[in-house]
């Protein structure tokens, strides 16, 4: 981007901060996509039956016959001190690793109950690592609902990986955030064409291929919810390249340009390189735009992707924004995004779901982005919805996915129009 964002304008923007019932997932949910991304990792939640039930329900109930995640369910014996929780955990981990010799990295994932009873999973991970290295590295992070909202689970997981990254002084670009393989391949090809070849991705596809990091690492966030990971990378000496998120033509171009500028790539070469993909992207978006242009959009807080998505749908597809809710607003990482949002949009952080539902009704939106718990009740009163979890499960980043991303929003409207009794 040419001009630095107007930080004052961002600061002046009024934000509605709310506190109340939150209709969101906790950070454990991230396991559902993280375990597909890191293919030799296993996620062991140390928690309650509720945790196991949550992941099972969020995953759409048993999509994989033997998944690479499980829950070590704390029972009354652990709580009453009849059993040493650490011995119990060691035993279950031994059982698990014996069963799954293909596993190279094990995450002990903290939960609300494990946090409240102060089970020290960091020490447990150290102890278990000492036992199982070099075959299996054991790390820990918290996906508990008292500390993390939905996508913050991925942030906590990636932050746990950062201290494990090998050190390197080489000048490298690091792309941070779980992306679909197809998106990663496209970005890698574009960077290569631009002339940036030393590019790594975090998380890697295999836990044994951790990317290096050091004072000459510059990183781009591919997701808006990676505050803790960014801090951890800075502690390793890396610097963040400020950019909007690579969503839509505009976002993707600015994101790539941030790296190109840092690598002093010739602007003309940059424009030539991205031109074919940009054209394809624009053609795809033009086709969908008539369906979304002028339609009113309301976003409930869920994934923290709300602000980049609202910006994309507003600027590239002509949607009118009513309220843009986000569970947490990282003002620094979203500074570029915020300058691209219209001044009159209502930004809200946190949630009191009943009050927000009242505001939503008053705003008379054509399309509402919300979690799975709210979607059918809203459809039942005639409001088209897009479930936000799909935005994490579907590749939406980059030029060639911008059309797919727009389709996700157009389809509910098209469907309502197509059905005689909707």
């Amino acid at each position, binding site marked *: 981007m040419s001009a630095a964002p107007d930080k004052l304008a961002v600061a002046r923007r009024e934000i509605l901060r709310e506190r*109340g*019932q*939150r*209709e*969101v*997932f*906790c950070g*454990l*949910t991230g396991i559902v996509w993280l375990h597909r991304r890191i293919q030799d990792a296993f996620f*062991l939640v*140390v928690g*309650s*039956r*509720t945790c*196991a*039930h*949550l992941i*099972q*329900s*969020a995953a759409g*109930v*048993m999509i994989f*016959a*033997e*998944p690479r995640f*499980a829950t*070590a*369910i*704390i*029972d*009354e014996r*652990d*709580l009453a001190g009849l*059993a040493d*929780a650490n011995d*119990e*955990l060691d*035993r*279950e981990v031994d*059982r*698990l690793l014996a069963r799954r010799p293909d596993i190279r990295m094990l995450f002990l994932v903290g939960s*609300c*109950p494990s*946090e*409240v*009873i102060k089970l020290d999973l960091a020490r447990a991970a150290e102890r278990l690592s000492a036992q199982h290295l070099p075959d299996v590295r054991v790390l820990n992070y918290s996906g*508990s*609902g*008292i*500390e993390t*909202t939905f996508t913050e689970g991925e942030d906590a997981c990636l932050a746990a990986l950062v201290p494990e990254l090998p050190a390197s002084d080489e000048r490298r670009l690091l792309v941070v955030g779980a992306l679909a393989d197809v998106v990663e391949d496209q970005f890698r090809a574009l960077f290569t064409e631009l002339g940036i070849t030393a590019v790594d991705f975090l998380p890697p596809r295999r836990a044994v291929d951790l990317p290096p990091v050091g004072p000459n690492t510059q990183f781009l966030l591919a997701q808006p919810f990676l505050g803790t990971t960014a801090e951890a990378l800075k502690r390793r000496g890396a610097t963040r390249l400020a950019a909007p998120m690579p969503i839509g033509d505009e976002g993707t171009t600015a994101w790539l340009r941030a790296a190109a500028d840092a690598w002093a790539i010739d602007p003309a070469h940059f424009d030539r390189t991205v031109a074919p993909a940009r054209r394809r992207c624009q053609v795809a978006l033009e086709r969908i735009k008539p369906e979304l242009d002028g339609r009113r959009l309301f976003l409930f807080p869920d994934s923290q992707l709300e602000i980049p998505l609202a910006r994309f749908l507003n600027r590239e597809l002509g949607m009118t924004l009513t309220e843009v809710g986000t569970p947490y607003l990282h003002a620094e990482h979203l500074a570029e995004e915020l300058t691209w949002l219209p001044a009159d949009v209502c930004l809200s952080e946190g949630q009191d779901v*009943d009050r927000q539902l009242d505001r939503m009704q008053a705003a008379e939106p054509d399309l509402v982005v919300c*979690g*799975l*718990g*709210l*979607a*059918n*009740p809203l459809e*039942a009163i005639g409001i088209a919805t897009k479930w936000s979890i799909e935005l994490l499960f579907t590749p939406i980043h980059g030029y060639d996915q911008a059309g797919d991303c727009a389709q996700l929003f157009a389809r509910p409207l098209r469907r309502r129009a197509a059905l005689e009794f909707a």
Partner: protein
Amino acid sequence: MKLTLWTYEGPPHIGAMRVVTSMQDVHYVLHAPQGDTYADLLFTMIQRDAARPPVTYTTFQARDLGKDTAALFRQSVVDAYERFRPATMVVGASCTAELIQDDPGGLAQAIGLPIPVVPVELPAYQRKENWGAAETFYHLVRALAGPAAPAARPERDLVATARERRLSCNILGPTALGFRHRDDVIEITRLLAELEIDVAVVAPLGASPADLARLGDADFNVVLYPEVSGTAARWLSQRFGQPATTEIPYGVAGTLRFAAEVAALAGRELPATVTAMRSRLPWYSSSIDSNYLTGKRVFVFGDAVHATNAARVARDEFGFEVVGIGTYTREFARDVRALAAEFGVDALITDDYLDVEARITELEPELILGTQMERHIGKRLGIGCAVISAPIHVQDFPAAYSPQMGFEGANVLFDTWVHPLMMGLEEHLLGMFRDDFEFNETRAPSHLGPGARGQMTSTADVELSWQTDAEAELRKIPFFVRGKARRNTERYARDHGVAEITVETLYDAKAHYSR
């Protein structure tokens, strides 16, 4: 601590939610951290409910823990009452809130709301979903029907009453997210009407607090799902002298037993209109096309009531051989063990999916009657599965009327249990042309589309090999027992120090194990 991949039941507060969501005018304030709201999607996505469950979550966070989470709970109760104006409120804690010991019951009652507030304490680290549902329903019934209870247990003479007027009953147990509960209630209500019994209240499904208050007015109770309503029905029997039914109207024989039990309460014989032939199952099952069902080896697993009743129907009405029975409902383990003993098989009482998988692998049944979990196990092992019980899945809410109970329920059982199997003549042809190049046992049933059955793999190690003619001989054994024959032969060979398996070894092993 126990390693769990998949769970058959949620935590007990999910059971409480199922009861509350079933009812009208009741609101549940649940002391719970952020994230526990996932439970809403069970109702709005799986059951396709058009409204959010009537549940308020206090949503405490880590930063609240050092401060006043009790105040947060109190405020949530006050706000929920103001907004939703329920006739009754249920309060309780989820697993995490149980650890911080705020006493939701005491806090809520101290507020002095002008409605009954029913606290439910559900120990999340000991108990599970169905128990939570039963406990919540029991406490609601006690709190709301209790005030109308007579001082002493009344003596009821139903036979005498039935001479004067029609008897009435309550149907107890159907809940939200119950396996086909919605349709079972319709079917059983119709059957009761034929028996000239009025249904006073169905609860919890569709009932309001006012309905629970008049539960004692009915003459007796129909306990449709003992896992949920057994406790409440026992209490009603003690306080109001209402007898409760014990037969479950599942399968044709079960439905007849249930109808006879109800008729007997009124001192009558079973009306002539209620006969086995009201269902198509008996005729379909005895028609010659069903010959191939004879002795099919079936493994049954589910909640205790569905599993035990399905096992009986499988044996007595389908002519299957039940090779194993199991349940995840520990509370009813005794009933399942008793039935297993009657059937001469081992009962599997577990909530560990891996145990169930191991048992199925070992037994090699030809059909599984199980839950969605066993359906996945079956998919992996190439064994057909019909779903007979919760845990619930969006597929268990079909658009069509599909009860499991009563005469129509028996029709549904026939269709759904036979569907995963190879059709009669198709199976005979397979037996006849065993090695046909395009039509062989590695194929799935033709009506289930393309795909291969799982290969029954050899467990042989390097020291053990099969001679070609022995392998060929093995292929002549029907595929559904071939895996077992292969393993038995290999075990025999290993035990007897035979390195190379010949046709001889195969038949030696057959003789050895047939003893």
